[in-house]
C-alpha cells in the first residue's frame, strides 16, 4: 500500500513537472502575474511529491518488503540498518529517484532563497528546472519504476554488494548527486538568462553561490569515493581514471572554471557568453556522467545496472537537453553585449587562462574516456586508454595552471603589473627552486618529476600565504595586519584557503606516489617483516563473525626502533548473500603517513603455524589528500558566507518589506 502511494506520488510529481514547465512560461507570455507566481508553488509541490515517493521506497527497504522487486534484488534482512537505509540509493532505480529528489529540492530552494530574484526571472529558472525533472521522472516511470511488485514475494532478498556496505559509500552518492544536480541550477539560470537576452553582474552574483555550493558537494563527493577506494579496495590506491571517476571529474573541472569566470562577470561585466556556455557545459557533463554510469556504455565497475533501453532513453534526453540549450546559446550569445576590456596582464587574463586550462583538461578527459568507443565505431581494433594517458594530460595542463594560480590573485583588475607580483612572490619562487634543486640533488637526479611536483605544491602554498600577508600589509606592522585579517572579505580568505588546499593536495600526491614503500610477504604468527622503516609482527590470526559475514582477522603489532607504535587488525571478510570476499585494510594514520596492512589468503594448510600472505605499506603524506580536499571545501564554504551574498539577501528583504 505504501509503495503504491509512492508510485502515485511519482505520477503526480510528473504531472506537476509538466504543468510547471508550461504554465509559468505561458503566464510570462501573457503577462499574467497569477500564472507566473504559480512557479513557486509548483516547485515546492513537486519536491513534496518526490519526497513522499522516496520515503515510500526507503520504507520498503527498512521493513525489507521483498514484494518490491528493487528491495528483493538489493536488500537482505540480515543487513545492518544503516545499509538498509543507504540501500535505497544503492541501486539503479533508487539512485535515479534520489537524483530527482535532489533536483526538485534545488528547485524549491531556488524558490525559497531566490526571493531577491525578479519574479519573472525566477519563474523562468523554475520552469527550466521543472522540464529537467520531467525528463527524469518520465525516465523513472517508463524504464525504471522502483515500485514494481513481485508476485509471489520471495522470503529473502539477494543482498547488497558487500563492497557497497560501507559508511563511506553510504554517503558518497548523495554527496556526489548534490554536486551533480546542484549544477542544474547554474544551467537553469543560464538558459533563463539566454531567454531574457540579458546577462548582468547581478546575474553572476546569483549564480555564483549556487555553483559554489554544488562545487563544494562535488568536491566532497569525489573525495569520499576516493577515500572509500583507499581503505576498502585494499590497494591504498585512491584514483584510477576509471570512466565513472572521470564522469564525476569532468563536471568538477567545468564547475571550477565556472566559479572563476562568474567572478569576472560579476566584477567586470566581461566573459559573459563564455560563462553561460560553461554553465551549460558543466551540467551537460553531469548528464553525460549519469548516462555513462547508468547505461553501461563503458564497462566499468560502477555500472552495476546495464540495460541498453535505459541507455537509449538517457542518451535521447541528453541529446535533447544539450542540443536545445546549445542551439539557444548559438542564437542568443552573439547578442550579449560585450563588457569591460582588460589588458594582457591582468586579473581577468589570469582567470581566462585558468578557464582555458580547466576547460581543456575537461575536454581531454572526455576524449580519453570516449576514445576507445570512437576507434571501435570507426572500425578500428579495440584500444585502451588508461591512467598513463590521463597522467600525461594532467601534467601538461595542470602544471601551468598551478603556476598561474600563485600569480593570478596578485594581479590587479584591468591592468596588472607582473613585476609587482613577481616581487611579492619572490620568496615562494625561492622556496620552490631550493626544494626542486635540493630534491634532485639528494636523489641523484632520480626523481626529477617528484621534485617538480614538490616545487609546484610549495609554490602554490607559499604564494597563497604571501598574497594574504600582502593584502593585510603584514610586513608593515604585524599586529595591525592581523587586525585587518579579521576584517578581510571572507571570499578572499576562502580563495587563499582553497588554493592552499590544492597545494597541499599536490604535495600529498607527489610524496605518497613517490615514496610509498610496499612489502609483499608471507608470515607465520610470530614472524616480522619491514615496510618503510616499521617492523610489522604478525601476532595471531583468528576467525571472527560479523553480523552478515565471517572473517579472518590478523593482529599485527607495528614497532619503530623496538617501540610499539600501534596494533593493526586487517580482515578478510566473506559475505553470505551474495557470496563475496572483501578485504578490510587496517589503516593507522600517523603524522608522517599511513601504516596500511592487508591480509590475504592462507598459504598451505591452516594450522597453528599457518602461513598468511600479507601486503604491508607505509604511505607517506596520504592524509594530505583528505586535508587538502577539506581545505578546498572549507575555502568554498568561507566564500559562500561572504558579505556579498548576505548583503544581497538583506537588501532584497528590505525591498520586499
Amino acid at each position: 500500500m505504501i509503495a503504491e502511494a509512492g508510485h502515485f506520488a511519482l505520477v503526480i510529481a510528473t504531472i506537476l513537472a509538466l504543468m510547471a514547465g508550461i504554465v509559468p512560461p505561458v503566464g510570462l507570455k501573457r503577462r499574467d502575474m497569477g500564472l507566473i507566481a504559480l512557479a513557486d508553488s509548483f516547485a515546492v509541490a513537486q519536491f513534496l511529491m518526490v519526497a513522499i515517493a522516496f520515503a515510500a521506497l526507503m520504507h520498503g527497504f527498512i521493513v525489507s518488503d521483498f514484494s518490491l522487486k528493487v528491495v528483493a534484488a538489493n536488500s537482505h534482512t540480515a543487513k545492518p540498518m544503516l545499509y538498509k537505509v543507504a540501500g535505497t540509493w544503492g541501486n539503479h532505480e533508487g539512485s535515479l529517484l534520489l537524483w530527482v529528489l535532489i533536483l526538485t529540492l534545488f528547485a524549491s530552494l531556488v524558490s525559497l532563497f531566490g526571493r531577491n530574484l525578479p519574479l519573472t526571472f525566477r519563474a523562468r529558472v523554475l520552469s527550466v528546472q521543472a522540464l529537467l525533472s520531467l525528463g527524469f521522472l518520465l525516465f523513472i516511470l517508463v524504464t525504471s519504476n522502483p515500485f514494481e511488485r513481485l508476485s509471489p514475494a520471495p522470503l529473502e532478498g539477494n543482498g547488497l554488494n558487500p563492497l557497497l556496505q560501507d559508511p563511506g559509500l553510504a554517503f558518497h552518492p548523495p554527496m556526489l548527486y548534490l554536486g551533480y544536480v546542484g549544477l542544474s541550477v547554474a544551467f537553469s539560470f543560464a538558459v533563463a538568462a539566454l531567454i531574457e537576452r540579458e546577462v548582468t553582474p547581478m546575474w553572476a552574483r546569483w549564480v555564483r553561490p549556487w555553483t559554489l555550493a554544488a562545487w563544494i558537494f562535488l568536491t566532497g563527493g569525489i573525495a569520499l569515493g576516493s577515500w572509500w577506494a583507499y581503505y576498502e579496495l585494499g590497494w591504498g590506491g585512491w584514483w584510477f581514471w576509471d570512466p565513472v571517476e572521470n564522469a564525476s571529474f569532468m563536471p568538477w573541472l567545468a564547475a571550477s572554471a565556472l566559479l572563476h569566470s562568474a567572478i569576472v562577470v560579476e566584477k567586470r561585466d566581461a566573459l559573459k557568453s563564455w560563462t553561460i556556455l560553461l554553465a551549460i557545459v558543466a551540467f551537460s557533463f553531469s548528464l553525460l556522467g549519469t548516462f555513462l554510469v547508468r547505461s553501461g556504455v563503458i564497462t566499468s565497475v560502477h555500472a552495476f545496472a546495464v540495460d541498453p533501453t535505459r541507455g537509449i532513453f538517457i542518451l535521447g534526453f541528453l541529446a535533447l537537453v544539450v542540443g536545445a540549450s546549445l542551439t539557444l546559446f548559438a542564437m542568443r550569445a552573439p547578442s550579449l553585449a560585450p563588457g569591460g576590456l582588460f589588458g594582457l596582464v591582468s586579473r581577468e587574463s589570469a582567470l581566462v587562462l585558468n578557464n582555458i586550462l580547466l576547460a581543456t583538461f575537461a575536454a581531454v578527459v572526455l576524449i580519453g574516456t570516449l576514445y576507445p568507443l570512437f576507434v571501435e565505431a570507426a572500425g578500428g581494433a579495440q584500444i585502451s586508454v588508461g591512467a598513463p594517458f590521463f597522467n600525461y594530460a594532467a601534467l601538461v595542463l595542470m602544471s601551468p595552471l598551478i603556476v598561474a594560480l600563485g600569480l593570478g590573485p596578485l594581479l590587479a583588475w584591468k591592468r596588472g603589473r607582473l613585476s609587482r607580483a613577481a616581487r611579492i612572490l619572490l620568496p615562494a619562487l625561492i622556496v620552490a627552486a631550493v626544494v626542486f634543486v635540493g630534491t634532485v640533488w639528494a636523489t641523484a637526479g632520480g626523481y626529477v618529476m617528484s621534485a617538480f611536483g614538490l616545487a609546484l605544491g610549495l609554490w602554490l602554498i607559499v604564494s597563497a600565504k604571501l598574497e594574504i600577508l600582502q593584502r593585510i600589509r603584514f610586513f608593515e606592522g604585524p599586529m595591525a595586519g592581523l587586525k585587518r585579517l579579521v576584517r578581510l572579505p571572507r571570499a578572499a580568505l576562502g580563495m587563499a584557503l582553497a588554493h592552499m588546499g590544492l597545494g597541499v593536495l599536490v604535495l600529498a600526491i607527489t610524496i605518497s606516489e613517490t615514496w610509498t614503500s610496499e612489502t609483499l610477504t608471507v608470515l607465520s604468527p610470530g614472524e616480522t617483516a619491514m615496510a618503510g622503516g616499521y617492523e610489522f609482527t604478525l601476532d595471531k590470526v583468528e576467525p571472527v563473525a560479523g553480523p552478515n559475514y565471517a572473517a579472518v582477522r590478523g593482529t599485527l603489532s607495528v614497532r619503530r626502533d623496538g617501540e610499539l607504535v600501534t596494533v593493526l587488525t586487517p580482515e578478510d571478510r566473506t559475505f553470505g548473500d551474495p557470496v563475496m570476499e572483501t578485504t578490510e585494510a587496517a589503516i593507522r594514520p600517523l603524522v608522517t603517513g599511513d601504516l596500511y596492512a592487508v591480509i590475504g589468503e592462507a598459504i598451505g594448510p591452516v594450522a597453528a603455524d599457518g602461513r598468511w600472505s600479507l601486503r604491508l605499506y607505509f604511505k607517506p603524506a596520504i592524509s594530505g589528500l583528505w586535508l587538502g580536499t577539506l581545505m578546498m571545501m572549507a575555502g568554498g564554504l568561507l566564500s559562500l558566507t561572504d558579505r556579498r551574498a548576505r548583503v544581497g539577501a538583506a537588501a532584497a528583504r528590505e525591498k520586499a518589506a
Partner: protein
Amino acid sequence: MKHLLARLMLVAAFALPAHAVDVDEVPLDDPAKEAEARDLMKEVRCLVCQNQSIEDSDADLARDLRVIIRERMAAGDDTDQVKAYLVERYGDWVLLKPPVAGRTLILWGSPVLILLLVAAGLLLRRRAAPPPPLSAEEEAKLKALLEAAEADEKEPRG
C-alpha cells in the same frame, strides 16, 4: 610523470585485489629488471577484468601474463620487445597506454589541440567584438576628466 602520478593503479572493485602479485611468483633476480617489469605490468591490461592492470589483478590470466613478462625479460627482452610480443598476441587493447600511432594521434595531441582551439575561440571573440563607440555625453565627460588631470599635473603638489 612516472613517479609523480604513475603509480596510480587501475583497480576494479569487484575482483579481489588483495592477493595480486602472488607471493609464490618469483621476482626477477636483478632488482632493476624486476622494477622495470613491475612498471610494465601497470601498463598492461588484465583482459578478463574490468579496467584493471595485471599488476592489480588476481585473475589467473593476469598471473599468466605476469609470468610471461618475467620470462621474456629474463630471456633478455627489453620492455618494448615484451610489449610488441603482447600486442601481437592480444592486440592494442592489452596496453593501457595506447601507442602513439595514426589513430591515436588525435588522442595524444588532444591537450595541445584543444588548448589552441579554446584559446583561439576566446581571442577571436574578443577581436570580433570591439568596444562600442563612446556617446557624445561620454566623450564630453572624458574630455573634462582629461583636462582636469592635466591641470592637476601642472599644479605643483604641496
